[in-house]
């Protein structure tokens, strides 16, 4: 049993520990190792090596036994993850199955997880819009949550830092509400999308339709080639893992970069039970890990701990890190840990057709679409609801086949499809207001297979969310009418919170230790060598897809941690 390497405290001691290897953990690993810190990266799931462990990446549709569809038994055994749009025969190996990690839904909540090296960075939708000050100032202006302790100016250089490395395609659109960044060439919009953008400019002041900025290498630069990544070829099979490294994932980018420094130790199959706190030193000293293969309990030690387990799991770890100093969870003097959870409201969409541009269609594919930045309540409060929504917008023309009949007639129709009309579609991405009642906490009795308490999740929509949805439908119907679209159909898409996969908060940042958990550097106010930089740190949600902001906050906090480490303050 005795393993001298593992058993020696020295060999289990690092400068820094990063809990989680997903989109933010990957960034913590890169920044810390690059600056010379010996860093242990803990991942609860298995290792996934770039390219080698993407088993379906190069498979043609006809090579899948069920052509991408999941067998009924898999769908029945996994009602939760089966609701995720990206879960199918081609990607299922990157998703946590429902039975693998149970949780308690006090209210219906779809918790979609990817337990492997790289986490959900393999599966994300790769949309990367910056926040503006209209987002950071939101809670203070509108009187909800608490004021963010940072402003756009604090994070802007770090947005640039991560954008240059990750590779973000986009146009410099010059919009105050959606600041420009360090962009590679944007993916093009099509005729109907640009037409709609023009209609908005002419008829709806302050509303815009732009090429959605995304983490794809439209034109790789030396820094990307150095990572071993290549140009995105618009395969649009991203969730299988990209053999080209055409989009940003921890696996293709930050983790191999951290590995090259020689300073990273990556330990898969390591479920973090809790963070160790030393009452005498007044700081965290390490983490307690359960090896998911051997069930062995192991402690690792470091001066700096980054918590990047994924929003709700970061909450869980802190809640489970109890000591006589922190009986209610690490850093939880004010009792707010696990509270003010928020998410994005994706519960509506709208579709239509357009009869113009019959002479045009599209050719090829692209990994992104159009984006309508938030236009409600941006510069001042102007509606009866708080905040607003951004929206995806895309137009497309498909080959369509009349499948009636049989025999040579049917065969001829199948082999000679006709171009259908231009169709347009949009979906809402609404900001939700963090509330104390939307919370997670530990169950007092039930435990998971590693002996860790199950998480109870209690999160729901509210009246503001319903008003937002109604307004989205009204405004987009009006804009679609004004653009001359036909067959306009608003769709109600009821879905539980969580399915947006943008769960945020619970360990929010703020200025005041009485009303927040983290300071402006993402340090726990009362345990300064613990940094939380994944979605758990979010004070409010804005409307933008959040990963880019997690990445920038992580890089910023990691560089601060390195400075403090150098000054022997940590």
């Amino acid at each position, binding site marked *: 049993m005795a393993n001298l390497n593992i058993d020696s405290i020295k060999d289990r001691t690092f400068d820094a520990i990063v809990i989680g290897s997903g989109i933010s953990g990957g960034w913590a690993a890169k920044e810390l190792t690059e600056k010379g810190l010996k860093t242990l990266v803990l991942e609860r799931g298995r290792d996934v090596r770039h390219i080698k462990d993407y088993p379906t990446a190069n498979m043609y549709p*006809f090579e899948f036994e069920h*052509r991408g569809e999941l067998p*009924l038994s898999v769908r029945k055994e996994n009602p939760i993850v089966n609701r995720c749009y990206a879960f199918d025969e081609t990607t299922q190996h990157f998703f946590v199955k429902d039975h693998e990690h149970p949780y308690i839904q006090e209210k219906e909540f779809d918790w979609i997880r990817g337990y492997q090296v790289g986490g959900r960075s393999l599966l994300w939708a790769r949309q990367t819009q910056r926040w503006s000050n209209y987002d950071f100032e939101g809670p203070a202006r509108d009187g909800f949550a608490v004021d963010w302790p940072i402003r756009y100016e604090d994070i802007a250089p770090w947005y640039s830092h991560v954008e240059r490395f990750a590779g973000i395609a986009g146009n410099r659109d010059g919009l105050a509400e959606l600041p420009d960044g360090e962009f590679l060439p944007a993916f093009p919009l099509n005729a109907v999308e640009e037409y709609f953008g023009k209609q908005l400019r002419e008829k709806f002041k302050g509303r815009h339709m732009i090429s959605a900025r995304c983490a794809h290498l439209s034109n790789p630069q030396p820094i990307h080639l150095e990572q071993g990544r290549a140009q995105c070829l618009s395969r649009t099979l991203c969730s299988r893992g990209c053999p080209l490294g055409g989009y940003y994932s921890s696996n293709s980018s930050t983790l191999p970069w951290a590995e090259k420094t020689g300073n990273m130790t990556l330990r898969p199959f390591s479920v973090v039970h809790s963070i160790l706190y030393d009452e005498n030193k007044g700081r965290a000293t390490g983490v307690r890990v359960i090896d998911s293969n051997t069930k062995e309990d192991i402690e690792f030690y470091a001066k700096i701990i980054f918590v990047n387990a994924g929003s709700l799991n970061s909450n869980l770890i802190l809640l489970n890190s109890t000591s006589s100093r922190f009986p209610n969870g690490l850093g939880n003097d004010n009792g707010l840990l696990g509270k003010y959870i928020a998410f994005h409201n994706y519960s509506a969409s709208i579709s239509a057709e357009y009869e113009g541009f019959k002479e045009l*269609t*599209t050719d090829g594919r*692209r990994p992104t679409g159009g984006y309508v930045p938030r236009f409600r309540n941006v510069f001042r409060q102007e509606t009866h609801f708080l905040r607003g929504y951004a929206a995806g917008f895309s137009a497309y023309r498909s080959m369509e086949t009349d499948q009636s009949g049989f025999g040579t007639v049917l065969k001829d129709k199948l082999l*000679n499809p*006709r171009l259908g009309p231009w169709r347009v579609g949009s979906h809402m991405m609404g900001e939700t207001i963090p509330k104390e009642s939307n919370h997670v906490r530990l169950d007092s009795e039930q435990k998971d297979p590693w002996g860790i308490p199950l998480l109870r999740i209690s999160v729901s929509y509210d009246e503001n969310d319903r008003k937002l949805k109604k307004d989205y439908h009204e405004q987009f119907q009006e804009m679609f009418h004004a653009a001359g679209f036909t067959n306009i159909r608003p769709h109600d898409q009821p879905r539980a919170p969580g399915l947006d996969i943008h769960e945020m908060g619970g360990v929010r940042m703020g200025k005041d230790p009485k009303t927040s958990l983290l300071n402006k550097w993402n340090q726990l106010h009362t345990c300064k060598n613990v940094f939380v930089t994944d979605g758990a740190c979010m004070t409010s949600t804005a409307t933008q897809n959040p990963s880019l902001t997690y990445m920038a906050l992580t890089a910023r906090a990691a560089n601060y941690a390195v400075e403090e480490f150098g000054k022997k303050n940590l």
Partner: protein
Amino acid sequence: MKRRSAIRHLAVIAGGIALLPSCIGSGESASIQLSQITISPEQEKLLAEIAGTLIPETGTPGAKELGVHLFVLKMLDDCYEKGDQEQFLQGLDRLEKIARERYGKGFIGCSTAEREQLLTAMENNEGLPEEIATFYRIMKHRTVQGYLNSEYVMTRERVYEMAPGRYNGYYPVKENIAS
């Protein structure tokens, strides 16, 4: 090497489903491994003929030649509720009975015109028993899907591009595909 590539070719023709040597020649079960349903070699042959009538050989392979009926069976076995599976098999038997009643022979023995009459009745859902409607709904949907997603069609007819590497949002419509 030649034999191996021939086997692979056969597997590909079968719509990506590997044929299992253990079943060949047993004479009692289908040529692919199924876990929920049981299919006799006669039923399998019958399904191949129906698939071939739905999408016939016309100088290019049809659904039967591409082994699409085996894909239909695979999907029926793995992706449907028990009730649908039972109705499918009952519907298949019922169809065979109707063929015998009307034409004095099974579907396989029917002439092309007779087969087409039977399919027309199913296509138009002309007062046939419910199980036949279920059978036809699944059979047709999966035959069309399996055909369109076969290697043959995806590499030679409606070519699937793995990595287009381009997007043109103003591509002129070619006349022969205009609606």
